[in-house]
């Protein structure tokens, strides 16, 4: 078995046992990236020298008999939405194409402290806005299972690099499904932790009340390992929870007894691809065979989840993205060009005798803002900024933003009520499998519906996992979603691993190159 086919836990143990060096493991992944990523384009940036340097340091510490942390020497890919000091952090946006943060995200620090080796930064939808990674201003990422299809998004690069064997572990972010949906599309495991479980410090904000960082991996135990490394309270993030972090990787293979699963009838209604429904049903049969009870439940307000999500997330985004104005860092329009333009406009207006219009001309500063943002942001980002700005405007705030917050509370209480009777909510991750590149480019609303089953967990702040549970006739992966109450990651991972222990979907790999 080649190095890149080992699980993260195996890699770590091999490195710890001296069967393998971190440097060799890292080199193997760098070679695989070199060979395959020309096609997949899951990475925006790979700093091979830096990765090897980090790996050698881990090897030296091991050789010296020092402890190296739970990720000891395992290479890890980071979504390009997380700040890495001195290294590009583009957020897949022209706005930050040249931006190098002055600090590391807490999660990046934690990965390093746990002995992880940062391989590179993965592609995504611009500022995490999208569900296909087609909104990246940097490059187009392809689904390793079918190169004509999207990997999902926004953590498309994060899922594709794992699926393509180009990283054993990868860190993504999930605001409305951005880890789980690409995990499902690429046939890997993706976990969205409870809001507050993982520090957001250094995660470039899309929607602050919804964003969470989480792991992607082939197997549930590997995801458990990475979560263990990155979870925990951070004094630099007031919204992170001051709760102890269980050793997820220690308990993940202990099955749970007598679990109660509930499938929401709303997640099996019209719009669900029958092939996906069939695979999810089959997965539920696996749980039945393991002694789980399965009942139908209702999340009556889930039909409003998308509407609420697409008010709250853009509202927060419109505010979070206000800082990209060309004044302090990031993209700035050509100033000389701008001044010439204003001069021309003034001359034209004056010649036409339109003096009122001359008075209304932008100041150079305002025009700088306008042009920098117009040129620096892609169209989906602009769309959401406009939606959010509108929803927060005086006169509309109550009807949109405040109403959406009320819906959010109803969705949360839906889950609270359901979790009184069941341990986990089970169902599909997405209505459909990975779609062809370009299929939804002109249809943002259809794309928004991709989040139908996933956005609820973000609105409710609970934890949720996507696990591969089959493939369609054409060989495209299907994901199974399990959702658990807040801070129940430990049980959620054990429940998910029960399924993987019985099935081999997570061991199938696409053929590349």
């Amino acid at each position, binding site marked *: 078995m080649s190095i890149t086919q080992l699980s993260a836990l195996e890699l770590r143990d091999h490195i710890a046992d001296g069967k393998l060096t971190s440097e060799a493991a890292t080199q193997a992944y760098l070679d695989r990236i070199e060979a395959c990523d020309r096609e997949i384009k899951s990475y925006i940036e790979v700093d091979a020298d830096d990765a090897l340097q980090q790996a050698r340091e881990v090897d030296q510490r091991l050789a010296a008999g020092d402890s190296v942390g739970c990720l000891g020497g395992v290479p890890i890919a980071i979504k390009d939405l997380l700040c890495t000091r001195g290294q590009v952090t583009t957020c897949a946006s022209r706005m930050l194409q040249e931006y190098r*943060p002055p*600090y590391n995200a807490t999660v990046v620090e934690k990965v390093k402290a746990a002995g992880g080796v940062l391989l590179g930064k993965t592609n995504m939808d611009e500022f995490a806005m999208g569900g296909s990674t087609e909104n990246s201003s940097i490059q187009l990422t392809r689904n390793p299972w079918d190169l004509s299809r999207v990997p999902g998004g926004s953590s498309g690069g994060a899922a594709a690099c794992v699926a393509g064997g180009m990283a054993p572990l990868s860190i993504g972010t999930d605001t409305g499904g951005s880890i789980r949906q690409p995990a499902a599309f690429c046939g890997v495991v993706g976990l969205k932790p409870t809001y507050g479980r993982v520090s957001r*410090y250094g995660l470039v904000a899309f929607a602050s009340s919804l964003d969470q960082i989480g792991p992607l991996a082939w197997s549930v135990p590997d995801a458990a390992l990475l979560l263990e490394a990155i979870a925990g309270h951070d004094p630099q*993030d*007031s919204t992170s929870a001051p709760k102890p972090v269980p050793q997820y990787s220690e308990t993940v293979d202990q099955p749970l007894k007598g679990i109660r699963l509930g499938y929401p009838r709303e997640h099996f209604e019209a719009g669900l691809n029958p092939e996906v429904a069939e695979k999810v049903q089959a997965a539920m049969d696996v749980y039945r065979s393991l002694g789980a009870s399965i009942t139908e439940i209702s999340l009556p307000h889930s039909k409003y989840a998308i509407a609420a999500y697409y008010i709250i997330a853009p509202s927060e985004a419109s505010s979070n993205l*206000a*800082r990209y104005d060309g004044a302090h*860092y990031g993209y700035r329009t050509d100033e000389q060009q701008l001044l010439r333009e204003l001069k021309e406009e003034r001359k034209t207006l004056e010649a036409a005798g339109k003096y009122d219009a001359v008075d209304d001309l932008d100041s150079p*500063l305002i025009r700088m803002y306008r042009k920098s943002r117009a040129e620096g942001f892609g169209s989906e980002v602009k769309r959401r900024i406009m939606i959010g700005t509108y929803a927060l405007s005086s006169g509309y705030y109550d009807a949109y933003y405040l109403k959406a917050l009320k819906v959010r509370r109803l969705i949360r209480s839906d889950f609270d009520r359901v979790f009184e009777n069941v341990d986990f909510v089970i169902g599909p991750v997405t209505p459909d499998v990975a779609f062809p590149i370009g299929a939804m480019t002109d249809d943002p609303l259809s794309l928004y519906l991709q989040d139908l089953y996933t956005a609820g967990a973000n609105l409710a702040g609970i934890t949720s996992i996507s696990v591969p549970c089959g493939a369609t006739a054409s060989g495209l992966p299907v994901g199974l979603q399990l959702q658990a109450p807040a801070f129940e990651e430990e049980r959620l991972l054990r429940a998910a691993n029960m399924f993987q222990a019985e099935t081999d979907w997570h061991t199938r790999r696409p053929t590349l190159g």
Partner: protein
Amino acid sequence: MNPPTYEIIIGLEVHVQLATRTKLFCRCSTQFGASPNTQTCPVCTGSPGALPVMNRHAFQLSLQTAVALNCEIPRFTKWDRKQYYYPDLPKGYQISQFDLPMSEHGWLEISDPDGAFPTKRVGITRAHLEEDAGKSMHDEAAGKADSRIDLNRTGTPLLEIVSEPDMRSPLEAKAYLTELRLLLTYLQVSDCNMQEGSLRVDANINLGIPTDDGEIRTPIVEVKNMNSFRAVERALAYEAERQYQVWQETGHRIGDVPKQTRGWDDQAQVTKGQRSKEESSDYRYFPDPDLIPVTVSEEQIDEVVKKQPELPAALRERLQANYKLSHYDADVMVNQGRALVDYFIEVADRSQDAKRATNWVQQDVMRTLNENGIGIDEFPINAERLAELVLAIKNGELDSSRSRDVFQFMMDEKSDLQAALKALGIEKVDDSVLVNLCRTLLEANPKVVADVQAGKQQAIGALIGQAKKQNPNVNPGQVREICLQLIQEMPS
């Protein structure tokens, strides 16, 4: 000019920088005067991904202020984003408090020592915490792209204290500001340095003009750019008169025109219209999702109340009640700050002579402080020594005519009373010596004795002069008393 035929209505918005060592949402220093952009970090420069964390000390200081301003403190308060674009606002929004401020519905009592207006309470609408913006330095005149931004100030904690429109004259506005600054100084929550921008004032002003069938209100104008309390007083006086003239010309009432902002030009002593950049600005306030709401417990407030220092108003009352100071004197003393009041109280308590202590502190001590531009902590005579001086005068051990020399010596030489007396050759004259001296003088001056016996007591004055010539240490009062006594004892 006729007396004004209108009522002036004034409300004030005061921004106070709180005296924390670090900023409101990061740990950068708030020290004034550092080189541009040296006191910054990813949080206060709005770097992507950085998150704010509330400075508990700043909240504590604002809580102390709110309690001292008699505000109601809600048990729950939150943070909101106030959104607008400006280069000195790197996040594109200011973290502030919108609909649930940390305090509201308070009051501050103001009075005028000369009784120019009756003592009154000015309502405090609300006081809320927010972060300061940076500073922009423009070279607009040159019309060149030459603006610079300093983000050192960005994120400094500000308490915005908004008053009700309860003030009725520029003098009342000044009194409010003076009392507020004093209160903040006594609480030690801010250094209130207007030159360094740690206290900033905006005013809202309009007029109520009585008419046959009630009253007309003129449009409210916001006045900015006032850099001293004197400037506030002048700007408001100017603005009231200006508004009255505008009303006479246009008849505009409140609501007829959009709210105007005017800036005070201290050189020209006029207010000038500012380009209304906002034009019904929409700040799109919404709760900041990066910060958790703050809950305030009953115990927390009790603790603040318990630890609250004596406030200026209470101190004034105590000085009047316990030390018999006049309202005016108490006001003057309290306005000098707590340290001077403590100094006075120690002198008064030790000497058990509040009246003399008051005179010494208010005249000699304060004059010296003012002349030298120093604080009481730098004054060379400590309270204990001044009390000795007062006590010596009170007990007749030191003649008041020589006391100023002693005071000057103690100050110049930083000496105690005994050293000063010794150096100046002042010593208490023994009673028997004094009686002998008086007897000798009376024998040598039969005319004076005869005059006194004839009822002209003031004739003694001539003897006092002679006594002092013979022995500069004699106490004139004592000489007078002994001489009269001896004359009375003479057989007539």
